[in-house]
Every structure is written in C-alpha cells, then in structure tokens.
C-alpha cells in the first residue's frame, strides 16, 4: 500500500514559535500572488534585459508590485502596458505549502500561507 510521511518539522517550529505571517511575505520569505486571468510570460529566453538567470535557471522580470499595508491595497504593473488594482487578503483557511521530491519519494511541508495578494479587476492601461 503506497504511503508517504509528510515532514513537518519546519512548519511545526513555525507554529510553536507563534511566528505567524502578518505581511505579504511569510516569515520564511514566501508570497502568494493570485490573478483572475492568465499570466502570459515567454517560455524561452530573449535578448532583452528583462531576461536573466538565477542558479542556472532562466528567469524574466515581469512586473512591479506595490503594497500599502495600512490600507491593504496593492497595485501590480505587468510589463510596460498593464496596471492591476488589488488587495492583500487574509485567507479563511491557511494553506500549507507541500514540496514533493520525486527523486527521494519524500514530501515536506515547507511553509504556511495566511495571506495572499489578489488581483480580481480588469487590467487598466498604464498612463
């Protein structure tokens, strides 16, 4: 019968220390971004200074995020043309982040999200 234990020592320590997320990023440095739509970014690198690499992996700079933690409002600039208005919301049910390691066949719960930044409105042009 297949089974796998979930390694939870990391989040257990977090929960017991009562070091909870109160900002857009978790104490472990993760953030959840949600957009009501499809975020289209290239699948391959191009000769443009938005493309670079990190730890051997190709990455692209796709946007700029501004958050006002007092008002819990957020603005997301996508590329050079789109501006989205959104907010920081507290999740009704926190979400555990599970990492499945296919090589070792192990599972680890690495973090807990209590907040997300969500953009539900139609993108506006950048004036």
């Amino acid at each position, binding site marked *: 019968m297949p089974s796998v234990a979930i390694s939870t020592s990391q*989040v257990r320590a977090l929960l017991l220390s009562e070091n909870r997320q109160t900002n857009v990023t978790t104490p472990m440095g993760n953030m959840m971004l949600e957009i009501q739509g499809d975020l289209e970014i290239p699948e391959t690198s191009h000769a443009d200074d938005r493309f*670079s690499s990190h730890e051997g992996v190709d*990455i692209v*700079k796709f946007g700029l995020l501004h*958050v006002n933690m007092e008002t819990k409002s957020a603005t997301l600039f996508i590329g050079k043309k789109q501006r989205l208005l959104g907010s920081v919301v507290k999740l009704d049910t926190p979400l555990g982040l599970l990492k499945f390691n296919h090589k070792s066949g192990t599972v680890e719960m690495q973090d*807990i999200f209590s907040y997300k930044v969500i953009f539900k409105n139609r993108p506006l042009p950048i004036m």
Partner: protein
Amino acid sequence: MSTNLYSRLSCDPSYKLVQLTPELLEALTSDEPQLQFKCFDEKRSDVVLCSARRTWLLRQKNHSNTVMLMREFLPEDEQTQEDSSLFGIPRPINDLLGYSRTTYEYETRATEGRINLDLVPIYNGEVNFPGESKLKGRTLKDVFDNSPSSETECKVRWYQLGGCVVNGCPCILSPDMLSNALHVTLMSALAESLDFDRLHPCETYEVVQKDVEKGRSPYVLEVVRTVLAKFGTPNDDETWKLNRRQVAQWYGVRALQKFASRHSVPLEEFLIKWKSTFPPFAGFDIDIKMLRGWFCEPTRGTVQYVSKDTLPVDVKDRFKMLFKLQSQWDLEAFAPFIEDLNTKGLKIDTFIMKYARKRRIGKKIVVCSR
C-alpha cells in the same frame, strides 16, 4: 512597499497547496507522530491524509485563477531602474521570484479510516494456525501501517471486526469462533462471579481456562482480549465494561440466522428462542428493536432473518427488494437497511423519499414503495 517580480520561465510543478483546517493545525502542533498520505492502491483508490488519530479524504479543488508562489531572492545581475520605469511608485526594496504555479488546492474532508484486511486470515480455532498464511511474519503494526487509516481508528476498528493475534499472526476470528469464545467467556465469568463492569483480560482468561477441557484450548489470552474489546468499553484501569446490549444483539443476530433464516417465525416464539441461547442466569435484556437491520416482518407478528450479503448494491434494486420482503416498514426499522447507500450524507428521511413514499399512520411514519 515596492517589489520587483520575476518568474522562472519554466515553473517547478512539485509544489502543492493543502488547506490547513483547525483539526490539521492541531495535528501539526501535537506531539503525536507525523501526518501521512496513504492509499489502498496506486491505481484505483483515493488518497487519504492520516494523523495519529484521524483520517481525512483528500479532495482536489480546481480553480480558474493564476496562483503564483514566489520567494525572496537576490538577482544575480543588479540593474539600476530608471524612475520612469517605476510608474510613480517608490523604488523597490526587494525582489521576488515566482517558482511555481498552481491551479488547485487540496481540501480535506473527515472520513472513516478503513483497515486493509487483504491477506489477513480467518481464525476458526485451527491447531496449526497460521500454517502457511501469507501474513506469517507480519505484525499487527504492519497491518495498521498498510491501512488507509489513523492508528487510533485502526485499533478500535480492529477489535470491532473481531481482530486478534494468534501465535503471533494477525487474524480475524470467524463468527463461529467469536460466538463460542463469547459464550465460554460469559459462562466462566458467571461461574466465578466476576464483575461484568470490570473484566480484566488476564483474570478472565484464567477463569476460562478452568472451564475448558484439558489439552489445547483455542481460547488463548489474545482471543479473550478480543472478546472483551469487541463486546466491551475500556475502563481507565485496563479492565473492560461489558456492553450488555451489544452482547444481546450478537446473540440475537445469531438466533435469527439459526431459527428464522429459511422461514419466518412468530415473534413471541423467536424471543423465547433468542433468550434460550444465552448462558443460564446471564440476565441480558432483549428487545426485537435491537435487531433492526437484520430482520423483516413478512407478515404481521412474524420475523425473518435478512442477510446483509443478499442486499443489492444498487439503491433502486435494494429498495425494490426490501419492499418485496415487506410491503410497509416503520421508518426506524427501514433506515438501517439503506443508510450505507446514503453516501452524500443527506438526512435519512430525505434520502429515503428519493426512492420511496412516506405515510403517517397515527404517530408513526411508515415507508412504502412509490
């Protein structure tokens, strides 16, 4: 606060999100062993999540938004940003890299853990047990580890099923073995005036050994332990309180099987026969209502055994069969025959009304076919 957002061109698909309900958060912070994903088999069964004490069915909730998981990082080539590219917002103070995207979350729904009885042999008192059983060499812990269930639920369910460990081999006591063991245990306990509210396995085993024939007795300590655990509730001090109703029910079902299988019998006659199956002076109360779910009344005032093995799995067929056995049922007598089919957890009379008709006769509600 402003942040530069980056994304990997190819996201890492090995991350998933699971909803952490209050029960799960409690399991995470307890001292008990870890959470596990378990599944009966790789191809067909559903994955469950188990803590030490509880089991949840895993459900995938898809959604139509883009959810990107991001983490703080240091870009390898810092670039100075011109003010015009900041669109009037403050200069970014950090950088986030999107490493994964998800289109679903896992929800958890509380469910009953199940024991995997594959390869667990039936024990009927055989001398050379377990013989060449495929489970030889495996322990009860192995059976529990291989079950999509929490350990606590396994332990409770194991004894409910008549689970036992004989000669080191996990097994299930056959109905005959269980009946005989219960009968011998009750007789021996009565003879020695043991307190039925405080039965200790070892003490009970000792009195059973006094009453069985010399030579090899199949009623080893573990069998007695299973009898007490199946028909009792635990006290604080390793003793068991006999559940008299459950014992009476067990005898009642066996009596139905023995006396009312082929033909119906008058109720009064059945009650006398049922009472006669108990050990003398046992003093167990009986009531035909205890056996609801095991019998029908083909004609007024008679009872006949209904084997659960003969009940159709299809809901319409089952209703049809039950109304063929008995044209009209009290709601309380009917419900036990169909509640396992109510998989959506509707109120039982709401569920029944989907396939039958309900009528009120005086204070009673009766159910009949449409």
